[in-house]
């Protein structure tokens, strides 16, 4: 009995240890980024630990090109996320709500952008723009981002509204609500958490994207492009500072989302 429970305890510790190692493996790069934002590098490359300083955080926007690139990225992410969230949510609604001719095909095509290599998407889109004579810049990058974000949004929202009770909408209309009132008062508030989660995810994807953006940006420089392009000349600690800021912004958004979501869930469940 005791032997058994001791063996169990050891097993439990082993599982915890392995899980801890796994988490460490995932978080190590992030940890390095954060730590090196406090580094005082000698020379242009912030890759070797020299000493602790708060200077980088005091002057986060010292690298004007980097800062400009960050603003470009944020602007693109906001606009493309806005468009992709609306379009993707509508696709998800249509697919989960109605069974129509070709809905199976759309389901298949929806995951295609998620599964095909970015390099293929990026280069073929660039070819398309070149052939059409479209000038590369904000518009092409936003179109490119919306293209892959739509799939992420649609798949995420669809997963979140699976099992949604559509008789709620019927009940609303039965009570005299027009179809649009039924949607805005009943369906939309109930699926909003799913839509917000999808928007958050696709915002991060847009900020982060390198390959597709690289092919379609022309002379426009986004945050990842700037870092990549400058890395041969210098790696200033401001990269780490701005990256850490982005990281904390998205983490706090996610935490806020989870907290609000849980509170709502508790309310709906009636505790």
């Amino acid at each position, binding site marked *: 009995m005791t032997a058994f429970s001791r063996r169990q305890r050891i097993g439990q510790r082993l599982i915890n240890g392995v899980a801890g190692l796994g988490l460490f493996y995932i978080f190590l790069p992030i940890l390095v980024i954060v730590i090196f934002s406090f580094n005082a590098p000698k020379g242009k490359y912030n890759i070797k630990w020299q000493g602790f300083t708060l200077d980088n955080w005091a002057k986060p926007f010292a690298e004007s090109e980097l800062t400009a690139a960050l603003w470009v990225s944020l602007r693109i992410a906001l606009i493309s996320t806005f468009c992709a969230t609306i379009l993707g949510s509508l696709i998800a609604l249509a697919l989960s709500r109605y069974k129509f001719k070709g809905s199976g095909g759309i389901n298949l095509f929806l995951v295609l952008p998620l599964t095909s290599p970015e390099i293929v998407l990026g280069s073929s889109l660039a070819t398309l723009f070149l052939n059409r004579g479209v000038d590369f810049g904000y518009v092409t990058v936003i179109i490119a981002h919306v293209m892959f974000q739509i799939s992420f949004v649609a798949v995420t929202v669809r997963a979140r509204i699976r099992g949604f*009770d559509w*008789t*709620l909408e*019927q*009940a*609303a*209309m*039965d*009570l*005299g*609500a*027009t*179809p649009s*009132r*039924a949607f805005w*008062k*009943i369906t939309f*508030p*109930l699926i909003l958490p799913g839509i917000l989660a999808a928007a958050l995810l696709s915002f991060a994807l847009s900020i982060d994207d390198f390959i597709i953006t690289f092919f379609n940006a022309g002379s426009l420089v986004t945050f990842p492009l700037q870092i990549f392009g400058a890395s041969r000349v210098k790696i200033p600690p401001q990269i780490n500072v701005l990256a850490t800021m982005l990281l904390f912004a998205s983490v706090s958004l996610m935490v806020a989302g989870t907290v609000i979501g849980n509170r*709502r869930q508790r*309310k*709906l*469940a*009636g505790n």
Partner: protein
Amino acid sequence: MSDAASPVADGANVDVIRLDQVCKRYGSFVAVDNADFSIGRGEFFAMLGPSGCGKTTTLKMIAGFEQPSSGRVLLEGVDVSTVPPHKRNVNTVFQQYALFPHMTVADNIAFGPRSKRLDEAEITKRVSDMLDVVRLSDFANRRPAQLSGGQQQRVALARALVNYPSALLLDEPLAALDLKLREAMQIELKRIQREVEITFVFVTHDQGEALTMSDRIAVMSQGVVEQIGSATDIYKRPHSLFVAGFIGSANLLPAVVAQGDSAGASFDFWGGGRITVKSGHVNADVALTPGEQVTVMLRPEHLHVSATQPAGESLSAAITDIVFQGASVRVVARLANDTEVTALVAGDGAPPFLRPDSTVWLSWGPDAPFVLDGWPSVAGATTTNVDSIEASL
């Protein structure tokens, strides 16, 4: 239940709901076949039948969620066949209630009046009145998930009734409740209906529910309305073998016409024995020509069991089973032709002669038999156990 007191009283002579030769087809499948009937003001009307008989489809066509393939649906005398649900003055209580989970009880109830842009003061008054009617005044600020099943059911009722609909449509409203609660809610529903004086149209597969609550019942089978009538009507004078078998339990005994005229008729049971039946106890579609195949329906509670052969008409049978049921004893017996019949013997104990394998005589009063056209698919006792009916579907 005077029309003057009804909140929807206008044109009191017009039927609240009229189905005019309504058919609903899905491809080649006929879900509802020529439904043609009216429902009056303040009536408690049940549509009863096994699942897939078309009762819910009929209800959805009245609510507006389905449109008839042919025929017309009239509300208050107006053709609404193609009018969408939000423009029809009927409200539905859904099977799983479909309460809005993100709203309080009060907001759920206020949803209809707010959709119609009523004055907010009027809405507040109506909501609190309705909460009174369904006895949930203390729960106005709760959310649906904080309520029990029966309370949720009452919120669903209040949310529908607050709109003063011409008719309230209820789709299996008690199916989600357990047995005890279901019985209590039957009484509660009836009370609320009397209080608000609104037409209730009620869909159920549970004949007990339909018999207890309804003024009239439409029995449906395979898309066809088999019979419409009061509970006593359809129980005592079923128009078809389906109705006879579906409502209550019955012994359906195949027979042929021996002779008959307007004064009465007599029939020879298949396998021996004769029965004489008064006029008025033979269904209208039975042809009284000798040799015609008919079914004699005898309810178990109308069969008397005796140890010796009685003076009048009777059948002999061998007892196969005796089941004590509290207020009565159910006797299962086998006729000479191997048909199994059941009889209910009142009293809390079986008389000593009732023993398995003993031979008894079954007799009946003059008002007991009712004769239907054709032979039953299965001769003898039908079961009324809801579970076994559902299991057989």
